[in-house]
């Protein structure tokens, strides 16, 4: 199975990210900014053609609204430096067909999603890893049913 990841970012103010930032600051986590992105990861059979997926995702109105979202393919189906993905801890099931919002995604056999979080300092740079870990433990991930994935 080959995985491809896409991020869907809000192009308008992100209220959820603001709430997370305010809560983390109140909990004593040293950060000055936060970036949140929805991540969708799709698995294809090794020989399948995934080239049309990005265009197809832009037709799924339940996850993408061109007026307020920006969608782009990630280079790798895993978090980058300074980033954590929080997702369900369950292993994604393999399906004959995968649909999202009523749209069948051609060739897709597995699908899972995560929330990407990056914490930023006052200069807009990623905070040290220990601070990101603190945020994960105190707020961003409930280990009872979620996992936190880092590079």
């Amino acid at each position, binding site marked *: 199975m080959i995985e491809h990841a896409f991020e869907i970012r809000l192009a308008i103010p992100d*209220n959820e990210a603001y*709430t997370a930032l305010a*809560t983390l600051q109140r909990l004593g986590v040293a950060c000055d900014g936060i970036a949140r992105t929805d991540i969708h990861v799709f698995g294809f059979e090794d020989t399948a053609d995934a080239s049309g997926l990005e265009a197809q995702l832009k037709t799924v109105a339940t996850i993408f609204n061109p007026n307020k979202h920006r969608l782009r393919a990630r280079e790798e189906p895993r978090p980058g430096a300074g980033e954590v993905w929080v997702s*369900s801890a369950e292993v994604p099931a393999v399906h004959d067909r995968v649909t999202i919002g009523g749209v069948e995604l051609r060739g897709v056999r597995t699908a899972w999603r995560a929330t990407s979080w990056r914490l930023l300092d006052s200069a807009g740079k990623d905070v040290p890893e220990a601070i990101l870990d603190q945020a994960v433990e105190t707020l*961003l991930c*409930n280990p*009872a*049913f979620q996992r936190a994935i880092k590079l």
Partner: protein
Amino acid sequence: MKPKVVVYVFPGTNSEHETKRALEDSGVDVALVRSDDRTSAAKNADGYVLPGGFAHEDRIRAGAVAAHDRAMDVVIEAAQKGKPVLGICNGAQVLLESGLVPGTSSARRPSAAFAPNLPGGRFRCVHVHVRLMIPPARSALLSALPNDAVIPAWVAHGEGRLAASFDELARVEREHLAFVYSAPDGETGPEFVPNGSALGAAALINKAGNVLAIMPHPERDAWAYMHRYDLVSAKTAQEALQPSGGITFFRSFAKAFA
């Protein structure tokens, strides 16, 4: 003098009035208090109820932000003093996120969750029954219920599936499983579980028995007219206004203050 119970209202709470009405009918004085209220009235209540809804819009995940709200400082302190605390639906999610229930971890470090429903994380709105799984005497909140009591209620959630590690689920099954989903006659089985909840769990309780987290809404089946349409036997308006099974849950909660 009637006991005083605070029903906390977070941004996004939506069941506070039904909950207040059911509690008042059961004999307690109720104050609806905003979660940003720092007055002594909020701190000096005899008990606390966290109602259903979508506190803080369920941002990050259901109950996560509310569990760190300053109002929960009051609730956690009250729970640690042994005061009755009840969380319904979203309130139950908050109690698990705050670590008060099942209470096997430190405060604000959850060891279990009411996670997205299975299959598919779909929101479910169905009439259910829940059966008491612990001896009523185990909890002051439940002590007025009979053994194996069956309570009717409405499920209305997208995230009500109990999830935890295997070890934690074993602990929950031994000591913290208060109610499971059941048939009206109390029969249990996976066919009665609307959300894939582990152990068929509908409600968990802490070790001391004073903090209860229940996912279905008994306050939405507190009077006959709230029953599912095919259960209604009322022929007159008067009959339709009679107490229903859900009110027995609140009457038992009220007796915790006796």
